[in-house]
């Protein structure tokens, strides 16, 4: 057997409050496409971070080209021959296609750029893979899929690396470009390169990869050859020992109040199709789905941030349409942004000012803020969501991720809405903060309103939701009631695989 081109031994990464990776052993052979899969939070992105030199491991070693390192720097990783295609296409929008392709590798003779050669080489590479993209186009004018395939070509072909890491590279590709990706990967395999292929989609991995490594809770659970796995055995490895519904299920009394929100066949082109459900007061409805399933877009459509849909939304039996978030807020529908840094916080404001951002008009008379009332309300919320800070006057940007999130939750609570749309409230926060955020949702929020909740991990949803809707590529696949929660079955539905089995026919399969 060949020597591995990359060998990770005993790699551990500890973050304050959580162990992201625990003595991970991983190897990649030349001429191998090695798949990596695991739930959110299993440690995939930490592993990629270590390989690309962005994350420093706490302990362990990396062996490449006969040399052993305890950590990589960004430039070291590149020099040793590791190329990475990140999840989000990072492309220079104002440069041409050809220049983006050769960025950082501009052919030069004595410091001058040889445009004729770059353009000829770019044309040759694009033609080789049958890509009909003009080399002089600005990257700005390309579709998301074309930008992504450009980055893949850059990493796989132009940079001529020994190891290529594709981090969910197929997520934003069109069908045509996905086929091109397969061709590129096959070429790499034939030329003896190693490919590390990361994806959330079981289907894709089983088709493309020679071996698969499954991560769960920061540990390598198994590394298996392609032929020894099928959909079900792989899903079992990923999900692990699951609590059956009777164990996790404190059964909830279905004592819900009036119906608050009812969606009828809501459709937004390219995001989601025919979504219908209703939400009652006191109910927590989870929305599960992979990236690109339309969960975030659905919440943004309801809250008026990305308006423009067919179908209708009823609030308390009245048809409503919000074209801006402020209209939704006035009716009592509050949206918690998925990205708290850019859409949630005013960083230059103190905690108190952030908490009162939406509700300040309530504590004012003819435009003037009533200092005492406002301060009391801020004090109340501050204590209610248990923000850890020296004082409310501290600037919001000095807080940890979990506490920032609590500030944003507190802010929308201050307005006392009747429907909460919570878009990944537990993303990127540590375990302790996650628990307290979930208990806020399960406690005060549930008591006063109806909640729509999305989450990067199924366990959060299974923990507190009364029902879970599963979306797959914009379609509503199935609705689970609490007594039917089953992590494996939910997981298969999110992959778009469960649907097929249940209905027993390929023609029903979600596209």
């Amino acid at each position, binding site marked *: 057997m060949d020597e591995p081109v990359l060998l990770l031994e005993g790699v551990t990464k500890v973050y304050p409050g959580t162990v992201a990776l625990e003595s991970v052993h991983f190897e990649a052979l030349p001429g191998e496409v090695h798949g990596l899969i695991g739930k959110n939070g299993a440690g995939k992105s930490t592993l990629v971070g270590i390989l690309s030199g962005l994350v420093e491991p706490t302990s362990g070693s990396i062996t490449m080209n006969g040399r052993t390192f305890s950590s990589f720097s960004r430039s070291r990783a590149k020099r040793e021959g590791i190329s990475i295609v990140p999840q989000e296409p990072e492309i220079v929008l104002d440069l041409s296609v050809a220049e983006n392709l050769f960025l950082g590798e501009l052919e030069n003779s004595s410091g001058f750029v040889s445009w004729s050669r770059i353009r000829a080489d770019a044309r040759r590479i694009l033609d080789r893979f049958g890509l009909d993209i003009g080399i002089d186009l600005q990257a700005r004018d390309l579709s998301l899929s074309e930008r992504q395939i450009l980055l893949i070509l850059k990493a796989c072909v132009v940079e001529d690396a020994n190891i290529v890491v594709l981090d969910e590279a197929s997520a934003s590709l069109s069908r045509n470009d996905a086929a091109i990706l397969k061709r590129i990967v096959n070429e790499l395999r034939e030329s003896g390169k190693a490919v590390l292929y990361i994806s959330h989609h079981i289907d894709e991995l089983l088709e493309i990869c020679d071996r698969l490594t499954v991560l769960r809770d920061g540990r390598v659970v198994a590394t298996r050859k392609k032929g020894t796995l099928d959909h079900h055995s792989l899903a079992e490895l990923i999900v692990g020992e699951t609590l059956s519904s009777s164990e996790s299920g404190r059964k909830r009394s279905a004592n819900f109040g009036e119906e608050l929100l009812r969606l009828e066949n809501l459709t937004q082109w390219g995001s989601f199709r025919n979504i219908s459900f209703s939400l009652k007061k006191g109910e927590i409805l989870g929305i599960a789905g992979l990236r690109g399933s339309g969960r975030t877009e659905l919440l943004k459509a309801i809250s008026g941030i990305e308006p423009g849909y067919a179908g209708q939304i009823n609030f308390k039996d009245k048809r409503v349409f919000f074209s*801006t*978030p402020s209209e939704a807020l006035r009716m009592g529908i509050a949206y918690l942004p998925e990205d708290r840094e850019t859409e949630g916080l*005013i960083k230059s404001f103190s905690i108190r000012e952030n908490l009162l951002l939406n509700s*300040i008009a309530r504590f004012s008379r003819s435009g*003037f803020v009533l200092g005492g009332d406002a301060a009391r309300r801020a004090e109340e919320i501050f204590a209610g969501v248990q923000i850890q800070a020296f004082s409310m006057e*501290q600037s919001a940007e000095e807080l940890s991720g979990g506490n920032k999130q609590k500030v944003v939750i507190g802010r929308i609570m201050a307005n006392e809405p009747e429907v909460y749309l919570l878009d990944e409230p537990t993303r990127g926060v540590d375990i302790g903060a996650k628990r307290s955020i979930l208990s806020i949702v399960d406690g005060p929020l549930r008591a006063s309103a109806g909640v729509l909740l999305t989450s990067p991990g199924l366990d959060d949803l299974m923990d507190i939701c009364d029902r879970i809707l599963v979306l797959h590529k914009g379609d509503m696949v199935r609705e689970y009631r609490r007594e039917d929660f089953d992590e494996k079955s939910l997981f298969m539905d999110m992959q778009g695989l469960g649907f097929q089995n249940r209905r027993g026919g390929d023609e029903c399969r979600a596209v």
Partner: protein
Amino acid sequence: MSGGLKIKLTLLDNIIWLMLSLFFFACALGIPAFASWNNIVNILYHTTIMSMLVLAQGFVLLSGNLDLSIDAVLAFAPGAVILASTKWFPGVLGNPYLAILLTLLVGGCIGFFNGYCVARLGMNAFMQTLSLSIILRGMVLFLIPLSIFPLDPVYSFIGKARFPALGNLPAAIPVAFAVYFFFHILLKHTVFGRNYLATGGNARASFVAGIDTRKMVIAGFIIAGLLSAVAGMLTAGRQDSVSNTMGNGMTLLAFAGALLGGTSMSGGKGSAFGMLGGAILLGMFSNALNLLGVKVTLIHAAQGALIFVAILVDRFRIALRAKLLRDEQLRKLKGAKG
């Protein structure tokens, strides 16, 4: 939070007034006649025009934009109105009170135009206000090739009048202070003010939080236009005429005043009193150099150096603030363990 830390943070956040006091005492010791009543009144009187422009620029900066047209508005608003009321329609527009209102209206409309272009049409604030600034300057040169004087005493009151009963205090000084006080209340204690600052701090988050951020940006430009018109009336009043050189080159110094006063270039951070401090420091600085007999051309260069110092002090202030809070956190952790 310990009391000592609170005091230190307060001092840091108001560092402009600390700098101003230090500078004042240094000058008072070193330069004879600097700390006299007459000279102090003189400094403040000479600061009033600049202080209006500093507030105008600072206010637009708070919303995350900038306005290069303020000194052109300073000249254009009173210039066009005085021309119309004395030369074109002396009968209809002869009333000086009407002329004052019209001047404010012209400033406000220009501000609205800027704001509309930036917020609604998505134009870049730098380019939009630059183009308008050049247009207005050209118009002023075309319309007022020669100065128009004298002005109606009602019109020139805020720029020229003095109160003999109050030690010959010029009316401009209480007017400027009143304007600053108004904007302090507006920013600190009204819903509009808070929403306005939030827009500058993070426009996307403010939009998601339900604030009409475009309205906020437009309001900021309107206010800048109004304040520039007030500065124009102060200037016209002081020289008892309108001329085409009024306000030349003051826009960039207004940036300096706002920055000295702790206004953030990226928006969301700053206060009216800070800007006032910045404006006064600018005025006091050139007054001190004047008294020392420094040439006018050199004073201009020295003001540039002052801006550099201001940026330096600001970086220092931010670093020190972060360090103080970090130390406090460490102390807290140690306390929790011990």
